[in-house]
């Protein structure tokens, strides 16, 4: 090899390396559309082909991942929305009469839900200046010591604000359970059903319901 040939070859290698490094730089910043040159048939060709295969495989994987990510994000969004909806649905505080609130409870009452219920009901009592709160547990299937304790706490907290609290809709089964597990419901007014509860609230507020004379 003459000096000139050697110099030419050196320049060629440098230029090829520069081209490769351009490709690498592009891939590093996330551009997977670039490809190394493979038209020439020399020592660099296999290397360029390997590099191209690698880039396309990275591109494929990245695309798949971004699609999966998108579906996951959508699912998370849905879950968040549903959680919020469940939270709102699970503790509706209804104003059934002037200064009388009803809190119908359906399903399982756990610690988290009971805390949320308590906060909601207390805030509503203050907001609407309620005098009576009726906690209707018709929709509660089972009662254990924990659930009974939550109800007791709710009644006490409502009383501390200066309102009266009734528990209604105690089914025969729940009555038996409460007696069986020996929970003391001292000082807590329990009534058969919601209409009895409303009657109790009227009585407490000294209201009288009379039929309009014809």
């Amino acid at each position, binding site marked *: 090899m003459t000096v000139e040939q050697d110099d030419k070859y050196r320049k060629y290698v440098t230029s090829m390396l520069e081209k490769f490094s351009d490709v690498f730089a592009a891939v590093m910043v996330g551009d997977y559309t670039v490809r190394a040159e493979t038209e020439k048939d020399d020592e660099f060709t296999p290397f360029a082909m390997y590099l191209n295969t690698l880039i396309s495989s990275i591109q494929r994987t990245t695309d798949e991942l971004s699609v999966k990510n998108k579906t996951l994000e959508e699912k998370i969004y849905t879950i968040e929305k549903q959680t919020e909806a469940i939270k709102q649905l699970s503790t509706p505080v209804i104003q059934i009469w002037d200064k009388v609130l009803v809190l119908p409870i359906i399903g399982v009452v756990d610690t988290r839900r009971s805390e949320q219920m308590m906060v909601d009901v207390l805030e509503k009592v203050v907001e609407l200046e309620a005098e009576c709160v009726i906690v209707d547990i018709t929709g509660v299937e089972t009662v254990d010591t924990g659930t009974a304790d939550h109800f007791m706490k709710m009644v006490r907290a409502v009383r501390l604000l*200066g*309102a009266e609290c009734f528990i209604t809709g105690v089914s025969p089964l729940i009555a038996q359970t409460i007696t069986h597990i020996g929970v003391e419901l001292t000082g807590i007014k329990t009534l058969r059903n919601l209409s009895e509860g409303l009657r109790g609230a009227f009585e407490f507020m000294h209201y009288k319901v009379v039929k309009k004379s014809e």
Partner: protein
Amino acid sequence: MKVPLIKIGDKLLVSIQTTIIDSVVASLREDITNEISTSGVKGLIIDLSGIDIIDSFFCRMINDIGHDARILGAKTVVVGIKPELAITLVQMGMEMRGVMTSLNLNKALEILK
């Protein structure tokens, strides 16, 4: 700091606007009992609307003041308990025995009428 006692007709209004230290609570109890026995008020209203945090001592003192007042012939109504305060009280297992509670001053005055 002293908590002012305001006499309105035959009622005594004690408005506690900020969290107070134990010694002040103790002296408040003395002031209230003295005032009830000398002026002969028939009702005592304790306003807790300015209180965010409560401890067991303060709660017991409120109960004791209510008890003292009853012995001296005055009914006690505690008003303005905030929801968060009510939750703290029940979570700590503390109760307001011997005192009535009411949402606001208006209702307390109605109760004592």
